[in-house]
């Protein structure tokens, strides 16, 4: 059906007015600091759970739209009824108690299943985040938190331990930020602080234990002083480990004595693989020592240094291989190995230092030593490799790594000394070349003196 020009003009005018009206409304709302409401006017939850709702009272839990504005669920288009169930339409609303589709939350023990309603459903999660995991709820029940919660419900006449962390204690309830949001409590730089809400609380941790050992509340403070916390919080290295990197996320649990090396090995892979093949690992397991943590500590892990190796007072080997008071069956041969390894490490460090000094001297004299300086890096690499090989607890592999470094330092030193000799050689060459030059200058001057003077000849420009 064709339309007349008049009809088209009227239709266009109506459309323009409608658009202008919408824009004006949106603009007014934004200019008043309000977001446009995402909920329809007859949204049933608003009636009771918003302060301006018709049926709101002081005892009704409040969930304002503004609080939800940055919530990842809200941003994905989910509304109250998508999590809590029930009918969103006022016309179809039933009292919560009478509505079987309403998901009731009566205790913390209900929360994992409440969140798991979607987060454990592959079909649901696929709609919003196809790569998201759906085993968090299952993992939670295997965690220290989940086990304690389950046990409390089972053992204490159905009374859950309300102090135990559930999903909302870490992620929040309304206003849950995406995990990659820098303000999220589970963003790497905030994780330790989030865990510390409970685990640094002396009252909350009092009387709690794990494997018959008190949980304590000093972990956060210790971690803050560790090399890992410095890397994460001061250097901004977000791959540096915080609580969940060693203990797990939803299945949070301290690693077992025999699993510590695996937790550390997540990042320190090379060292973990060397340690896995070392006899010392089995010795540690046999006497119940927690692998890496035996020497490096658990939460308060400081920057390792060569001083940790050997039989000096600052070394950790001496803790067990003490000749006067050996522990855990530690042997004197082990003490000797530690001493030898330390001495060899010091030898390479000394050689690197000597080579570096020679290169610096050549540089100071303005000589070109880019090549030797570049190659010296290989010696530093060898030193790092040797320090890694310490975790085999055998001098053999360490020696192989050190020998590579010593070859490099010898070569660099020889080349730097050659350059220094070049410098001396150039001066000798200069002296030798200046002699004939000065000789020629002298002879020329003598010859010039013998030339007949030709003054007063007259000069015409």
């Amino acid at each position, binding site marked *: 059906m064709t339309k007349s020009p008049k009809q088209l003009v009227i239709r266009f005018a109506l459309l323009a007015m409608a658009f202008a009206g919408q824009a004006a409304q949106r603009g007014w709302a934004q200019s008043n600091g309000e977001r446009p409401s995402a909920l329809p006017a007859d949204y049933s939850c608003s009636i009771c759970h918003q302060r301006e709702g018709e049926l709101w009272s002081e005892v009704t839990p409040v969930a304002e739209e503004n609080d939800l504005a940055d919530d990842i669920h809200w941003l994905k288009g989910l509304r109250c009824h998508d999590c809590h169930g029930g009918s969103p339409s006022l016309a179809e609303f039933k009292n919560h108690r009478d509505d079987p589709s309403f998901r009731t939350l009566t205790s913390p023990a209900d929360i994992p299943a409440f969140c798991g309603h979607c987060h454990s459903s592959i079909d649901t999660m696929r709609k919003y985040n196809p790569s998201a995991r759906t085993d968090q709820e299952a993992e939670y029940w295997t965690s220290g938190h989940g086990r304690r919660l389950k046990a409390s419900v089972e053992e204490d006449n159905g009374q859950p331990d309300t102090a135990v962390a559930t999903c909302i204690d870490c992620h929040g309830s309304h206003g849950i930020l995406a995990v990659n949001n820098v303000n999220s409590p589970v963003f790497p730089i905030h994780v330790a602080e989030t865990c510390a809400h409970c685990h640094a609380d002396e009252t909350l941790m009092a009387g709690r234990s794990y494997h018959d050992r008190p949980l304590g509340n000093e972990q956060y403070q210790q971690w803050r002083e560790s090399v890992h916390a410095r890397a994460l919080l001061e250097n901004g290295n977000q791959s540096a480990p915080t609580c969940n990197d060693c203990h797990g996320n939803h299945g949070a649990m301290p690693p077992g004595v025999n699993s510590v090396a695996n937790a550390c090995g997540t990042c320190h892979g090379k060292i973990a693989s060397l340690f896995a093949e070392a006899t010392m690992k089995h010795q540690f397991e046999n006497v119940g020592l927690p692998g890496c943590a035996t020497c490096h500590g658990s939460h308060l892990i400081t920057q390792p240094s060569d001083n940790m190796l050997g039989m000096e007072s600052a070394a950790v080997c001496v803790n067990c291989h003490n000749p006067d008071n050996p522990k855990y069956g530690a042997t004197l041969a082990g003490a000797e190995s530690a001493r030898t390894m330390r001495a060899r490490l010091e030898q390479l460090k000394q050689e690197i230092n000597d080579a570096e000094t020679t290169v610096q001297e050549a540089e100071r004299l*303005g000589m070109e030593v880019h090549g030797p300086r570049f190659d010296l890096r290989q010696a530093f690499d060898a030193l790092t490799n040797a320090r890694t090989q310490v975790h085999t607890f055998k001098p053999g592999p360490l020696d192989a790594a050190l020998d590579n470094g010593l070859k490099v330092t010898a070569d660099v030193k020889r080349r730097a000394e050659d350059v220094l000799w070049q410098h001396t050689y*150039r001066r000798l060459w200069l002296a030798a070349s200046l002699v004939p030059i*000065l000789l020629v*200058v002298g002879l*020329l*001057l003598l010859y010039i003196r013998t030339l007949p003077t*030709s*003054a*007063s000849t007259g000069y015409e420009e």
Partner: protein
Amino acid sequence: MSCRVKPEGSLAVNRRNRLWLFLHERLGLDALEGLASKKRVPIHRCTPFYYLGGMALFLFLIQIATGILLSVYYKPSPDQAFESVRAIETEIQFGWLIRSAHSWSANLLVGVLLLHLLTTYMARSYRQPREVTWLTGVALMGLFMAFGFSGYLLPWNELAFFATRVGTAIVGRIPGFGSQLLLLARGGENVTGDTLARFYALHVVVFPLSTVVLLGAHLFLVQKHGMSVPDREADRLGGAGKLPSMPFVPHFLLRDMVGWYVALGLLAALAALFPWELGEKADPFGSAPEGIKPEWYFLFMFQTLKLLPAHVGPFEGEVVGVLAFGFSGLVVLLVPFLDRGPRTRRALNVLATLAVGFFIIMTAWGWFPAADHSALRIILISLLTLIVLTLLLPFTDRRTAIRQSLCGVLALCALVLLAAVGWELMK
């Protein structure tokens, strides 16, 4: 047409070997010989200044010889330039000597040329009919500075890269066609491999060919018009016609050779004792290192542009600076035509004194920019002032008030120099 040697018109044939005779017959060397035997050099107080031109020529020949040797191993690409220069320094036999000699002789050459320009101005050797000789000389000065600018980038090290970036950016400030000139100089918007390629082409092809042409013209004109004698000297010795003189060959040539040998010795000492540094390889994506500066003969411009405020009146500071330097260069070029009489000469002398003073102070300031380097700055300023003032001595008569004043200022400069050196040593 063959040219037979006439026994009575040239040196005795029995004194020459057969090769000489062979060349003589075919190349007409007797004409050159005749020219050389006739050419004479006037003897007066300013005669030593004549050696500066010969010394510049000698240093230019060293530049050509060492430049050819370097070009055998140098690779003009951003990936290989730095490495090839490093290989020249470390792996090629005597490569370090060739590179250092090339770099040092380039700097000595510019220094000698500046002195040559200054003494030529002082002696007013640009007077009629030598205006074109002056023009070719100033053009050669500019050309050698361009040689230095283009050669500075070739090692592709950090300092040179960022100095070139700053230097070419200044070109871009020229009003009107600056942006086009910048694109032309860089071969793009940034200093890249294209810039290196065209700087290399300029350095080894365009500039050398231009120099040969200009230098040829300059030498021809010097030969045609002969050595200029300062008016004062001609008057003092009773007129140009009564000036004592010496034959160019062998008297002047041998004296020139003494200067060349001294320059050679100095060059060897500088190359051996102060090898030219290579620095770090340029990283175009890195940030500019501290203390970037151009070659010393561009420092006065660099420092001035650094000190200029963002705006001078309604104009941008840098634009004003660039225009001022361009105008100054034009004034230097047109000196023979601006010197129209005693009044304009006095004005030119005042301007020249101010320009030399400005050059010395700004160069010293640019060389030692740190606030705590004031003693070093004073050392350099007094040293350069001593050199320039010494050049004035031959232009003054003994036992005159002006000579005594000059000696007084020289003594004062020497005193300041010694005091500043002492202060620096005691720190």
